[in-house]
């Protein structure tokens, strides 16, 4: 223990400038980090806040760089590469040396970061004690960043070489991903932001495990060559996991087929918008991009229960020509909203390689869409009255909301903040066509505005700030009349309903569209 403290004290004394820089940056984040979710007041403060938001945006990468500097400099104080270092012929015990470095990271990276998050949570009105498990888990996710950085430092002689190594890895990854996307080899070109928890957790686990292995190997035996191989296995594993896309492999398991149509959460039917049973595809990409044809398929949804909603996650398309030729795509993510009873049109977007599309173009084909969907059902409902501007209200099970003044007199928007991530919630309130005072006099009944907040994805990952304030988009916020386009008004006292939705089930359904003609849109001269 004495040796650990002895080395730790030496490092703290030696690296005081780096430590001070990192702590000052964290201190700045504590001081101004709240502007990201703070409601806007006067136009003057809005301008000031936007400058502060810019500074907060800068602070995050700066803090990251300061951590890299701390990690690398601390490890290079007793560099593990080379055979001329002073310390290697002194009675250092490798476990204690490694423990001293970990203590250094704990004291000057983990602890300040943890305290910063506690303070930010408390300032946002959330109880740090309640969120303690999430705070601690976030430190584990932080390790998936810090340990590979430390691993990189253990196989290099100085900070410059560590930085070059990391830059090299980032550039190589970027080149591989970009070239893969351009050529269509390796990574599937598919849109969508479908949650991939398996891949995400697997990558974190690989980073943690290999990062630890590199560090232990270097401190124990200073075997730089095998350590390099282990370290480079991290980006390689990242590429492999991303290209294998384990979540897509598991879709059939995660989304079982519905046993009967009556038990299905939704029924699909093709909407023949053109009237001649044809679908027009648009070519994307170019000679390098591995041409793809994007086809939009309008689909009507019916049968969604009143207390449920449906989210289309992934789609797989199969084409069958009259001559028996058959082609099936992989699962493709869908960027689509949430469908309740009243929101009954879904536009599926599929991508077909250009050469495949060409084989089916012009003739009648049978198209089958396999749809992986999530059914969510309504849970707790909380109703509040819209408070006065800048008066905060805590919505149980949701977050802390505040009507925020816009620059236009009497105009407001609802701004809410959440710890870590918003719960998946349906929000509805009432807009008024006139400013609040006039609306009150004229007994304007207003119009409902609604929207969804949050995501069913509960995948956790590292978060720099524990407080988020996503923009809440409510429908009908703008008013169209004959002359102009204007804003509607959100007024104090208006009812606001927050309905929490939870995942009920995930299923796979299919839609067959017989005898459809596929065409490619031609560019007009």
């Amino acid at each position, binding site marked *: 223990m*004495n*040796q650990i403290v*002895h080395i730790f004290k*030496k490092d703290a004394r*030696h690296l005081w400038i780096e430590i001070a820089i990192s702590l000052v940056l964290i201190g700045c984040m504590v001081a101004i980090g709240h502007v990201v979710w703070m409601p806007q007041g006067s136009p003057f403060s809005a301008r000031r806040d936007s400058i502060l938001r810019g500074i907060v945006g800068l602070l995050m990468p700066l803090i990251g760089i300061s951590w890299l500097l701390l990690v690398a400099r601390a490890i290079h*104080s007793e560099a593990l590469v*080379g*055979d*001329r*270092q*002073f310390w*290697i*012929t*002194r*009675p*250092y*015990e*490798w476990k204690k040396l490694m423990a001293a470095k970990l203590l250094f990271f704990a004291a000057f990276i983990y602890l300040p970061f943890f305290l910063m998050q506690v303070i930010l949570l408390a300032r946002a009105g959330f109880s740090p004690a309640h969120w303690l498990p999430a705070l601690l888990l976030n430190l584990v996710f932080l390790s998936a960043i810090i340990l590979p950085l430390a691993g990189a430092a253990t196989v290099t002689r100085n900070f410059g070489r560590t930085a070059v190594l990391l830059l090299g890895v980032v550039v190589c990854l970027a080149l591989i991903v970009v070239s893969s996307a351009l050529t269509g080899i390796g990574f599937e070109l598919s849109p969508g932001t479908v949650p991939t928890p398996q891949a995400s957790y697997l990558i974190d686990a690989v980073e943690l495990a290999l990062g630890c292995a590199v560090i232990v190997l270097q401190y124990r035996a200073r075997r730089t060559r095998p350590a390099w191989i282990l370290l480079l296995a991290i980006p390689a594993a990242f590429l492999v996991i991303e290209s294998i896309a384990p979540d897509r492999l598991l879709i059939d398991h995660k989304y079982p087929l519905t046993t009967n149509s009556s038990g299905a959460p939704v029924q699909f039917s093709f909407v023949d918008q053109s009237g001649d049973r044809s679908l027009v595809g648009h070519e994307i990409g170019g000679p390098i991009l591995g041409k793809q044809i994007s086809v939009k398929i309008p689909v009507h949804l019916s049968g969604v229960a009143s207390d449920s909603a449906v989210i289309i996650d992934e789609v797989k398309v199969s084409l069958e020509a009259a001559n028996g030729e058959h082609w099936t795509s992989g699962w493709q993510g869908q960027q689509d909203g949430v469908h309740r009873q009243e929101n009954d049109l879904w536009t599926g977007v599929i991508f077909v390689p250009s050469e495949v599309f060409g084989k089916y173009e012009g003739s009648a084909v049978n198209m089958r869409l396999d749809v992986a969907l999530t059914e969510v059902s309504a849970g707790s409902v909380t109703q509040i009255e819209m408070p006065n501007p800048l008066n905060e209200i805590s919505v149980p099970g949701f977050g802390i909301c505040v009507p925020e003044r816009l620059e236009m007199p009497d105009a407001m928007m609802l701004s809410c903040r959440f710890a870590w991530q918003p719960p998946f919630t349906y929000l509805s309130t009432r807009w008024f066509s006139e400013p609040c005072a006039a609306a009150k006099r004229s007994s304007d009944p207003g119009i409902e505005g609604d929207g969804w907040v949050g995501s069913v994805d509960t995948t956790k990952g590292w978060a720099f700030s524990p407080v988020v304030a996503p923009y809440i988009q409510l429908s009908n916020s703008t008013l169209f009349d004959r002359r102009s386009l204007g804003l509607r008004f959100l007024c104090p006292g208006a009812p606001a309903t927050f309905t929490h939705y939870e995942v009920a089930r995930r299923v796979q359904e299919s839609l067959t569209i017989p005898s459809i003609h596929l065409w490619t849109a031609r560019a007009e001269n």
Partner: protein
Amino acid sequence: MSFAIRMENLSKEFGRTVAVDGINLDVAEGAIYALVGPNGSGKTTTIKMLMNILPPSSGRAQVLGVDSRSFCGKDFARVGYVSENQEMPEWMTVGALMEYCRGFYPQWDAQLADQLVRQMDLTLDRKLKHLSRGMRMKAAFASSLAYRPSLIVLDEPFTGLDPLVRDELIEGLLERAPEATIFISSHDLAEIESFASHVGFLEQGRLLFAEEMAVLSDRFREVTVTLNGAAKLPENLPAGWLQPQAADCVVRFVHSQFAGQETQREIAAVFLGVRDVIFDAMTLRAIFLAVAKSSRARRAEPAAETNVGRSAA
């Protein structure tokens, strides 16, 4: 007899290059052992294997009874290691270095540390990066001797230092000699000769000889033979005669197995008409040069013969 260092067939290869080739060497406790040899002969590699900085390719070594491959951590509390090209924590002051090192050695002798600092004229508040090479080496010495190590390992410690600094270092070192074994590699043969008790000579990774300094001095003689007539070197001279040269009526060579009367009889048997024979004692430097040059000449001979053979063909 107990040994501080034992090497058995110790070898190190870097790819196809053999840096150290099967060294067998024992260093008795209490000895001041000098490992000498030309540049690239494998001295530093040998020391790095002893200190477990490099793993041997084959063979084994024991340092203070511990296998060199597992020599680590606490074992270094008994060893003082100083190397000419050691990277020191340059940001530290001399005082901070001494204080920092103190934390690693339970047997640290604060009084001795003060004495070493005074003796070596070190300024405690000067940063190592601001010190001259000599002063940095003195700081390294002080920080390696203050805990009274039982084995002091020095790799070319005097290279590039002025005579005054060398003298101060040797003085500090010799004060520790009664309680420690010293293993030193050096080019500075004149200095080594003044205090080494044993010497080992490395050439191209091989140990050509290893013995007590006194025996070595007794064994080597520069021999000048004056003949009655013109001197001509016979074809098959004894193997122990190094660098033979003949001019007019004088033959000169280095005898590496000098044995008094017996050597005189040997010379008389080789040369006819010996008028006079003079045996001069040799310095370590002279012995080093004679052995190194004759070793190189021997290595060059087969190559030359091969070339001649090729030309004839």
